[in-house]
């Protein structure tokens, strides 16, 4: 399997009033060809920062160090002008709340026309493809003549999927695209993302979400993030069936997605809350909330490959 994207020791910090929030602190992993990589984690773990940094790094985000390579060549994420070559054509992002960001005073057809025009493409050139894609996501062509407010959440999200992949990008980054949808739309939209990859309209997808259950349904591999660092990486089935990092274990144990009732089995939350990223504690960032922590954990555990494709950042994993 070839690597589409290689992220090496990436550090992206946020400028805040009280100092730099170390939102992404030394993150390393790869995205393979033709894969749907799920990035899961809770608020503040850095997953959205990661998604955004791969395409548009603007203040208050700042690039600190690290490298990102696409197909072997360096991706100039710290240079906004040079990134223009990649944006929308090679790498496309569906940001959080994208569906609410459609210009309410323009018809959808007009919005698309403007968008492709910005990238020096004539609307007529992609019109046929646009119709095909709309058909794929089960949206009628009439949608082009409607205003965004006339569409429901699910419809808007499918539309956004079509718009962001119109130029067949290599990498599609989807940031919380199903979080605001009803459960039935969530299933339909998630499966459509998968289909776009299956039909090779996009090469790989980074699917960012806090909902691990959705990732179980459509992702090939999962990266679990916590407080700006990678906790665990592995194939989906393995991560769910056999989570190794204490955070992953606790997270999965707190989900009521396995058809259980409180009378039969009690779920447990994770006590405490994620650390302050401006002054994160020394050592493992999960230390304060981890039931297995000891003095070794005062030193930060490296992300180690303990099996092919299985990486964990925890001192305790050898023993467990």
């Amino acid at each position, binding site marked *: 399997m070839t690597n589409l994207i290689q992220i090496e020791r990436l550090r992206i910090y946020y400028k805040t009033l009280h100092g730099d929030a170390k939102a992404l602190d030394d993150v390393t992993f790869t995205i393979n060809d033709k894969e749907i990589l799920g990035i899961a984690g*809770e*608020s503040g773990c850095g997953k959205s920062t990661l998604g955004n940094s791969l395409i548009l790094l603007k203040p208050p985000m700042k690039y600190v160090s690290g490298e990102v390579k696409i197909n072997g060549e360096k991706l100039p994420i710290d240079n906004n002008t040079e990134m223009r070559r990649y944006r929308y054509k090679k790498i496309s992002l569906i940001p959080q709340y994208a569906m609410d960001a459609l210009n309410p005073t323009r018809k959808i057809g007009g919005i698309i026309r403007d968008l492709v025009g910005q990238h020096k493409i004539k609307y007529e050139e992609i019109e046929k493809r646009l119709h095909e894609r709309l058909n794929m996501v*089960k*949206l*009628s062509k009439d949608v082009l003549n409607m205003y965004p407010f006339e569409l*429901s*959440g*699910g*419809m808007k999200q499918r539309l956004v999927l079509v718009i962001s992949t119109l130029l067949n990008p290599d990498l599609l980054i989807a940031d919380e695209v199903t979080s605001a949808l*009803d*459960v*039935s*739309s*969530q*299933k*339909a939209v*998630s*499966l459509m993302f998968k289909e776009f990859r299956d039909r090779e309209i996009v090469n790989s997808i980074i699917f960012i979400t*806090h*909902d*691990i*259950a*959705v990732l*179980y*349904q459509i992702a090939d591999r999962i990266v679990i993030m916590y407080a700006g660092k990678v906790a665990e990486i592995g194939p989906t089935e393995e991560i*769910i069936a056999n989570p190794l990092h204490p955070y992953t274990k*606790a*997270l*999965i144990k*707190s*989900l*009521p*997605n*396995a*058809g*259980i*009732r*409180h009378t039969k089995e*009690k*779920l*447990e*939350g*994770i*006590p405490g*809350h994620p650390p302050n990223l401006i002054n994160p504690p020394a050592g493992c960032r999960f230390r304060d909330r981890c039931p297995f922590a000891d003095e070794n954990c005062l030193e930060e555990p490296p992300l180690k490959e303990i099996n092919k494709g299985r990486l964990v950042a925890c001192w305790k994993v050898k023993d467990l």
Partner: protein
Amino acid sequence: MIKAKNLTKVFNSGFLFSKNTITAVDEVNFEIGKGEILALVGESGSGKSTIGKMMLKLLKPSGGQILLEDKDIFSISNNKEFYSKVQGIFQDPYSSFNPIFKVNRIFKLVRQSFKKEVPASEWNDRVENVLKKVGLNAGDVLNKYIHQLSGGQLQRLLIARALLMDVEVLVADEITSMLDASTRVDVLEALLSLKEIGAAIMFITHDLSQAYYISDKIVVLYRGSVVEMGSIEKVFSNPRHPYTQMLLDSIPQLDRKWETDRIDIEDSDKKQAIWKEGLCKYIDRCPIADTSCFKPTLKLVEEDHYVACVKL
């Protein structure tokens, strides 16, 4: 015990020449007994939040009644009496507190409104106790402003407030939707402590997994009407209404994959909306519907399990 009888809410928008009518809640019936948790489940537009607001007297029904111990709540003119028994918790924890005050103000206001006679020291003890019950430490939270606390802590503070008031009925409107997964469970556990004191709880949610985890009974709403209701075990193990089946089918589980043969899309190939007044509301999306699908009534299909579908 709180009951809804033929509860209806119609919204009129527009002025003079452009009147628009939406029936948000359409003749809904249910009851919640002491210590019971009823899950009110539906997607956006189902009317569940509207029902919640009516239960809290924040909206007036257009038809039907809500009965608290057999008394119509809208005939109880004494607000203090009503709200000392019925309380609510809303979706956005950060919007539920006035940002210019510290969070302990919510307890002060409860004392002023409902428990003036309790002496100060006893009151402080009571507050500490209820905070402990929801897993919070008084010293950690009482003197803080909302931006210093997490969403989960704020929601638990609101549950503590309800415990403090010894409420009989609690309306929890999507209280976990804005929280991280790892803190949701703590909030659900705190909700169970209210069940322990005998409160009747209405758990409004779109998340069926959470509904199954915590509730005793369930009401499934579609566009304002009840399509299926009953004991949670019965409805989940044997869903009879096509909509309920579709919903349960769409939940992303951790132990099985989605079935990809049937994918419900709200606006799919059917170009024309068939629905008219008098027909079943689900007719446009239903896989088994035909022209004989008139507006159904709830029928008993097995003990503690009702379904509204003419095809059954």
